[in-house]
């Protein structure tokens, strides 16, 4: 029996430099799995490999019984995997509505897309008045919520989030954390959460992987990792 999502023994190189080495991860349907680690540990590279933006050298990636590691990013989105990229990467020169509609690019059910726009406004009420506003004029937190909403507009079954709390005020971080839980529970979306904010990541997730210089150094239930001596010292500053 195969898992919902599984990466097996991934190696990734940037030119000749090895960025990931023998990385394996498993995610069950409906789970939130966290990937934590310092800068340059390979967290973003892992997500890039999952979405097809970066080709893996060896290994396999499986999703719902299908091998996806040779697919292009647009094909992987079509299977129900969306990503909220690091640094938000909204379209600055587009208005908010067009940003969200880009998320729904592959969908042909226009009426449902329209309803989803309204549902995004319910989740993030500020969106409603900002629909016609150029996205670059939004605050960092608002941009992050646009990026999350854009990914949700594809109606993904698996959401990959790269540092959603980066550079945001504590109050906004709490709001983002709440919405991640809501997306997971209400919309039944599985989540892989990459975070430097290890405390938040371990709180939200059921399982977690600790990456160190391109390798999985530790893995296990998040509750246990929170109490792990090394994790506490290195990643939680306790």
């Amino acid at each position: 029996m195969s898992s919902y999502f599984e990466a097996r023994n991934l190696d990734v190189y940037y030119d000749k430099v090895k960025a990931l080495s023998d990385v394996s991860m498993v995610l069950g349907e409906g789970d939130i799995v966290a990937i934590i680690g310092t800068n340059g540990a390979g967290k973003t590279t892992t997500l890039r490999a999952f979405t097809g933006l970066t080709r893996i050298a060896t290994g396999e990636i499986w999703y719902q019984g299908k091998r996806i590691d040779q697919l292009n990013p647009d094909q992987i989105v079509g299977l129900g995997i969306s990503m909220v990229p690091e640094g938000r990467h909204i379209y600055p020169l587009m208005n908010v509505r067009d940003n969200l509609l880009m998320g729904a690019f592959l969908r042909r059910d226009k009426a449902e897309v329209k309803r989803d726009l309204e549902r995004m406004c319910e989740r993030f009420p500020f969106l409603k008045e900002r629909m016609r506003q150029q996205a670059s004029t939004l605050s960092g937190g608002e941009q992050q919520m646009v990026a999350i909403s854009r990914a949700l507009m594809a109606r993904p079954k698996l959401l990959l989030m790269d540092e959603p709390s980066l550079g945001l005020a504590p109050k906004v971080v709490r709001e983002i954390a709440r919405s991640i839980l809501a997306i997971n529970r209400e919309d039944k979306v599985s989540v892989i959460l990459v975070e430097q904010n290890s405390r938040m990541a371990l709180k939200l997730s059921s399982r977690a992987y600790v990456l160190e210089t391109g390798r999985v150094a530790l893995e296990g239930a998040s509750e246990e990792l929170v109490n792990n001596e090394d994790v506490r010292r290195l990643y939680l500053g306790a």
Partner: protein
Amino acid sequence: MEQVIVNSLILGMNYALIALGLTLIFAIMNVLNFAHGQMYVLGGFITYYALQVLHLPFVVGLVASVVVLVLVGLLSERLLFRRAIRVSTREESTMLLAAGLALLLESLILLFFGEKQRGMPPIISGVYQVFGVYIPAGRAFVFAIALASLIGFVTFMQFTRPGRALRAIAQDKEVTALQGVNINRYGALGFGLGAGLTGLAGSLLATIFAVNSGLGTAVSIKAFIMVMLGGAGVVSGAIAGAFVLGFLESFGYAYMPGSVTYMLIFAGMIIFLVFRPQGIMGKPWG
């Protein structure tokens, strides 16, 4: 005076099509299309050939020019630029490729259509008189088609799904792939559209100014002036740059000795770009 303004508008409208084509290809593919002028010339010759040799109606010539140029654009993306971009990370590679494509197209044009300057009688005869200004019907017709095409293009970019995807690619290619857009397919679309627009302008302006096989480089240079003045990769900038150049050129040719005009335009452009390198509408892209 009024006459010159009218000429400026007609010229600016058609220049806008050329500049939009160039800026689209640049924004989508990050390619400086040095073959743009040759594509324009090809569009002009196809219309000339349809009208004067095959004696077909103008509409057929116009459509033929656009269709052939869209195909040329699609093919050059598919066979040349896509490959060059994949195997080389250096921007010079695509620039050299575009320069080579320009030479190839120019030679082919010379081979098929000869070295003679080719003109044609106005599409519609007659003259309108509006507020004391004489507007030949043929020019008014060219203006109207260019205006309609411009509106059509901007509407397409602003309000349709593929147009939105093209704008998205111009802003962030990787993230657009993550929304499910096939970047290769849309790159080809952008290249085809860009070439089609300049072919359209070539077809229209050939009915006013005639066309010859050596015209390409001059048109390319004008296209680059417009795009640099307006701001590279920005739709509104391309249109603004086109009208600025249309006016400068028309007024220059009307009131100054012939060769002085472009010398002043170049000097003015250099000074302008020193103070505003991103052009009129250009923004530092985030």
